[in-house]
């Protein structure tokens, strides 16, 4: 086994193109054993492509890769596993009907004679969970496990296969704050066991809390490789985006007008109870709270993809029909949902097809869709949001995660809604673009749209919202104005349910 600090992985001048699109134009990455190594860069910089090459999903076109002192065998997922490389994806793929122990050892169960020795498998799984510092019952089924726990099971599996490096592509994007804490503990334990971790994230606070080393990529090339002690947040941001970013949250003040959305005593016993609030023209109202506090369900109920039992919703002073997204859209409500892959996008359809999906009326001649107008619409939003893609008919599946998110935003902003509901609008979006998205939301508010924003990122909530409604376990705890709200009192309300400190 490698000693701490030994060079484990070295990628030199690695190049990769997809058809005409250049994803990597000469990237370097050096990772040592016992190191948590952050790989940073803007959306589309090539981070996921790097990891996929190591995972054997893609093969690099040029450059040298050395792993554990030997040339890396590329282009085969199985070969990557055999070499000791493990990948933890954002959405783990456990077998939901099997137990955790079975999931950890699937295909490689310890045997007693010919029979599988389940006692032994369970004991080993428990030992792995202990090493990682988490309490999970190896006998329980994987179904119903939170994403965070599923990731831990995947990590245990990686350890059981003797992985020496673990690749994590935005593992924290869908986790709550406490789950992120726990994942960090797991990562520290991995480091203590002399494993290397490559960690991709757009949440720079996390990166600085945990990493030992930072490699920054821009446009498919490495721009800096520094130990954490030799760099700082401002430097990293500048290296990522290639310029100084001064204002992260450029919120401006707008005149606030009539009530656009009025929610009255809304109840769906499984998720939320007695929720009442309003959003006015030009106003940004944020729903804050922990993951699972019922915020997304409220948004979905207003938009009509979910239902509610009692209460009512009014839009522009008119009662809004329950459970009908079609009516909601006709009343100029837009919802940018939480899960872009399942709910927000048609992954095999082109970027243009996705962006134009809600704007057919404007693309129509008398009967037929006008492809020229569709192209113009797509180009317009590509500019507005700086969406990166090679060709506008490329399936969105080929876009990087952040550019997919921008595509969903573009689709709904193109409808020019009165009420814009955004659920985690900057999930997976890089720092530079985050500011742009905030600017866009702010601009939309300036144009008199009402904005309801759900976000688990506190700085985003505090920076953007005129009013903050804090939710806890499906109930409204308190409402804070922009002036009153601080990091402390929002967290206190969201976790304890007490109104202020």
């Amino acid at each position, binding site marked *: 086994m490698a000693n701490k600090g030994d060079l484990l992985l070295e990628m030199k001048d690695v190049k990769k193109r997809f058809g005409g699109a250049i994803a990597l134009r000469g990237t370097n990455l050096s990772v040592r054993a016992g190191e948590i190594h952050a790989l940073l860069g803007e959306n589309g910089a090539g981070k996921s492509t790097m990891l996929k090459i190591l995972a054997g999903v893609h093969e690099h076109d040029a450059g040298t890769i050395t792993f554990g002192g030997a040339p890396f065998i590329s282009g085969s997922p199985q070969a990557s596993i055999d070499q000791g490389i493990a990948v933890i994806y954002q959405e783990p793929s456990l077998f939901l009907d099997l137990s955790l122990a079975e999931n950890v050892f699937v295909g490689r169960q310890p045997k007693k004679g010919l029979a599988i020795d389940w006692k032994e498998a369970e004991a080993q799984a428990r030992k792995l969970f202990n090493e990682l510092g988490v309490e999970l019952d190896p006998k329980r089924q994987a179904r119903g496990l939170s994403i965070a726990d599923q990731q831990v099971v995947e990590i245990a599996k990686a350890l059981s296969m003797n992985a020496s490096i673990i690749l994590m592509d935005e593992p924290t994007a869908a986790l709550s704050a406490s789950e992120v804490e726990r994942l960090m503990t797991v990562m520290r334990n991995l480091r203590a066991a002399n494993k290397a971790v490559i960690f991709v994230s757009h949440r720079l606070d996390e990166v600085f809390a945990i990493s030992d080393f930072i490699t920054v990529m821009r446009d498919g090339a490495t721009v800096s490789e520094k130990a954490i002690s030799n760099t700082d947040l401002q430097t990293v941001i500048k290296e990522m985006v290639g310029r100084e970013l001064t204002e992260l949250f450029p919120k401006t003040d707008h005149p606030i007008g009539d009530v656009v959305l009025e929610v009255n005593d809304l109840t769906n016993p499984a998720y939320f109870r007695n929720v009442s609030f309003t959003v006015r023209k030009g106003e940004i109202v944020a729903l804050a709270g922990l993951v699972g506090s019922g915020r997304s369900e409220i948004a979905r109920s207003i938009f009509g993809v979910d239902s509610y039992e009692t209460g009512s919703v009014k839009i522009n002073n008119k009662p809004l029909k329950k459970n009908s*997204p079609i009516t909601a859209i006709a009343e100029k409500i837009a919802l940018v949902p939480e899960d872009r892959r399942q709910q927000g996008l048609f992954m095999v*359809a082109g970027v243009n097809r996705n962006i134009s999906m809600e704007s057919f009326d404007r693309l*129509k001649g008398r009967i037929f*869709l006008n492809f020229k107008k569709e192209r113009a619409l797509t180009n317009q939003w590509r500019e507005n949001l700086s969406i990166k893609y090679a060709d506008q008919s490329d399936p969105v599946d080929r876009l990087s995660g952040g550019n997919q998110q921008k595509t969903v935003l573009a689709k709904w902003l193109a409808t020019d809604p009165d009420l814009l509901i955004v659920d985690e609008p900057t999930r997976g979006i890089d720092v530079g673009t985050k500011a742009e998205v905030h600017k866009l939301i702010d601009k939309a508010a300036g144009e008199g749209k009402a904005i309801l924003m759900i976000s688990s990122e506190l700085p985003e909530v505090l920076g953007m919202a005129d009013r903050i409604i804090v939710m806890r376990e499906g109930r409204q705890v308190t409402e804070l104005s922009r002036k009153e709200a601080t990091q402390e009192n929002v967290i206190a309300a969201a976790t304890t349910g007490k109104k202020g400190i």
Partner: protein
Amino acid sequence: MSEKNTFKVRKSWDTAILALLFSVWVLASFTTDNFLSSINVSQIFSNSSEILIMGFAMIFLIITGEIDLSIASILALSSAMLGWSYAAGAPIWLAILIAMAVGTACGFINGFLVTKLGLGSLAVTIGALALYRGIANGILGTNTINEFPDFWTSFGFDTFGKTFIPQTLPVIILFGLFFGLLLHNTAFGRRTLAIGQSPEAARFAGINVVRHKIIVFTFTGFMSGVAGVIYTFRFSTAQADNGIGLELLVISACLLGGVSIFGGVGTMWGLVAGVLLASSVESWLTLQEINAQWRTIVTGILLLISVAAPVMVDKYKRARATLANKA
């Protein structure tokens, strides 16, 4: 991963079908004397009539992720209604209208049962397959009706003057244009594709999935009714076992033309190429005087490949992707 790869497979599939169609034509015209003769080409087209007509609507259904196995029975029922009402003294135009209306109603009923009751389209339309054919039997029994006005039988059978163009061809082209434009150039077509690509995202996009599917089922019923009328005049025969087994040819032609059995992917010209390929091979074998059983076997193999190949390639890619995920 898998979705992206499917897309790639589809693109190369389109090219493969065109290349195959072209090579069949070249080969056939070298190995036989009269493959490209006007009579034969005309024959290829008229033999494809019903498959094309039903295919134009069926492609929408398969793209949304549904299927209708009862179309050949609808064809028979509409044919039976046409013969029966004409024989009972109705004017021919009314008999034609009745036939098409019955087809439309059958399609609507299928759509209603599938969407409103949430029953699977495979189960519902297998039942409907037996039911509609049964009703056709009830109406005509073992009778056949062969007496139709000359104008209409020659419409079904003859070509324009001395040319090789079947008189039904303009009708088929009109329908093809209508459904082609509907699929590729209208909001309706975009929504059809969207529903097949992701029913959940379609709901979040405000698409009325239930209503949309009912409409598509109804279109399919209507076109099967039209096919019933054309079939009746082409063979001057209304009888209860008209068009038995045609549903498999239509579905296979769709798949041969690159429509994904999992929904979300498909083009109108792909369908046309698929149908023409099947009929050209059939005609080539006929001209080679290869007997009917062998012809059926070859066509069957071709169709099986068209179903299996994309699925196999996809499975292989999927397996790779899963491996990667498990890494």
